């Protein structure tokens, strides 16, 4: 299998804090790749430098053969990486449908002139945006809440809406930052099914999650970060039994 995303030697420093220290990963097309690690290990920072919200100091990102190192977020999204946020960041006072419509911004073209003249092409595009948004809401299972303001949705539905909005950008790689955080077991189970569906539809998933049980059952491969360094990588079983991973999570047993 060829690597879809190649992350090589990424460094990110915040003043004295070395948040990412020579992190290299390669994610294959079609897999669900898990990223775990204790709090503050640098998982979200990796997401932020990958999606262009932060500027990495050194390293390289190659996605689909394209260089994405230090590119602006809209360039990253356009080349096919979409993300969600650990602390949900929806457009709170827009409806669920409008949120997903915004997600399609990068794949649509109508500008000021098209909007004002509303020529047939602009009309068709606008109608398409609406239809597609509803389809995506149905896809993640909240189609009936389309007219609800995002902030009035239940927690689990907000998570789903964030995924729908990210999918609206037509990504080849979907980066999910702790999508199951704060969910009850049945919501988590539903989320797992949704992720499997997304993968089956050809989207590669990069997943940060604390729920180890979920990760073991879902991921093809897992990498572990600790203090900004990758300390392990491999299939879930191997990672689970890696002494360094156990040490990072539990500390060393006193002798």
């Amino acid at each position, binding site marked *: 299998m060829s690597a879809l995303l190649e992350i090589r030697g990424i460094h990110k420093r915040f003043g004295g804090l070395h948040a990412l220290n020579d992190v290299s990963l390669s994610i294959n097309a079609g897999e669900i790749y898990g990223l775990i690690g204790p709090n503050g290990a640098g998982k979200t920072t990796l997401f932020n430098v990958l*999606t262009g*919200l932060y500027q990495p100091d050194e390293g390289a990102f190659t996605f689909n053969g394209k260089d994405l190192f230090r590119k*602006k*977020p*809209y360039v*990253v*999204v*356009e080349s096919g990486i*979409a*993300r969600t*946020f650990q602390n949900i*960041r*929806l*457009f*709170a*006072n*827009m409806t669920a449908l*409008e949120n997903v*419509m*915004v*997600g399609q*911004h*990068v794949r*649509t073209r*109508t*500008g*000021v002139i*098209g*909007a*004002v003249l*509303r020529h047939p092409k*602009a009309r068709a*595009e*606008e109608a398409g*945006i609406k239809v597609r948004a509803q389809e995506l809401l149905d896809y993640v299972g909240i189609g009936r809440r389309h007219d609800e*303001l995002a902030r*009035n949705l239940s927690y689990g539905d907000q998570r789903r809406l964030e995924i729908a*909005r*990210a999918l609206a*950008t037509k990504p080849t790689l979907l980066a999910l930052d702790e999508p199951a955080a704060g969910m009850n077991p049945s919501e988590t189970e539903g989320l797992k099914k949704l992720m499997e569906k997304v993968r089956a539809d050809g989207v590669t998933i990069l997943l940060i999650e604390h729920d180890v049980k979920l990760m073991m059952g879902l991921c093809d491969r897992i990498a572990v970060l600790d203090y900004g360094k990758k300390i392990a990588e491999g299939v879930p079983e191997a990672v689970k039994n890696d002494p360094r991973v156990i040490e990072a999570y539990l500390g060393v047993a006193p002798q």
Partner: protein
Amino acid sequence: MNFAFMKTRHGKAITYAVLAVILALLPWMLTGGFENGKSWVRAVDFALLYIMLALGLNIVVGYAGLLDLGYIAFYAVGAYVYALLNSPHLAAILPAWLIGPNFIVMLVVAAVFAGMFGVMLGTPVLKLRGDYLAIVTLGFGEIIRIFLNNLDRPVNITNGPQGINNIDKVHFLDIDFGRPMEWLGLTFDMVHLYYYLILAFCIFIIFVTLRLQHSRIGRAWVALREDEIAANAMGINIRNVKLLAFAMGASFGGVSGALFASFQGFVSPESFVLMESIMVLCMVVLGGMGHIPGVILGAIIVSITPEILRDVINPLQEGIFGRRVVDPENLRMLIFGLAMIIIMLLRPEGLWPSKRRAREFHEHDEEAQA
């Protein structure tokens, strides 16, 4: 009130037709109904100019959520561009083909120029939000005014504090908007002619704003206001979308300013003080940020109320005290300030908010009560 009938297609058509008839007859109702009708039409003309300004600022503040306290600068730019190209002031220096261009061309030039100033303001403040942005925009507004005040030396461009006089009236479609015209047995005075002219542009701007609101661009603006980081991560080019908001808002201001200059026949820096920026912001906030009918209502109320007070306070004072106790000018600001405070306390979402904003504020109440 029941507006339900207006929702049907038939009802909508009837509403628009009634509105059109009222708007067409308004100046005649005013001149026919009041002794000083002409000054009332004049007040309405200004209200229309303010509606354009408020709609322009609404794009920046209401949609994109960028607090701009120097908005009047764009009105000034439009007004001065018109004034410089349509008055004897620079006629001797500028090449002849530049002086007194076609009216439509002129307005496009004013809009483009103001839009460029919008980008000029927008570029350095791309990373700023909230109070910091407000301070920088305030400074920008003042800089423009002070420039206009001082650009009479070493080369006299703006004629300084004296302002520019003898600005030509609009000549368009063989109509001289400065001269009374007989038509259908009616005498169209300058205020009447300008009423229809400004109304036409006002409707055009309302149309453009409406179209933008429900478009890919409009949604991007609102997303930007709601959460800039999320908008960024959704692939919206924050820089372009922000600059577009500044430029669009500014160009509306420019059109309004150009019409103002030709209507007034005179511009000076005094017309573009900070208080004017604040007034336009009041119109937007008072009416209902981000909601076009609300913003229009806000502009009408804020610009017409002082005129009404002027006509009401004096007779009232004389009736009660038998003489004039307070100058209406002083009372005006007092009453206006009080009204703003009361409205903002009782209806923080504005007088006529959008459904979105009404829900936003209303649900907080429900949560508090629950």
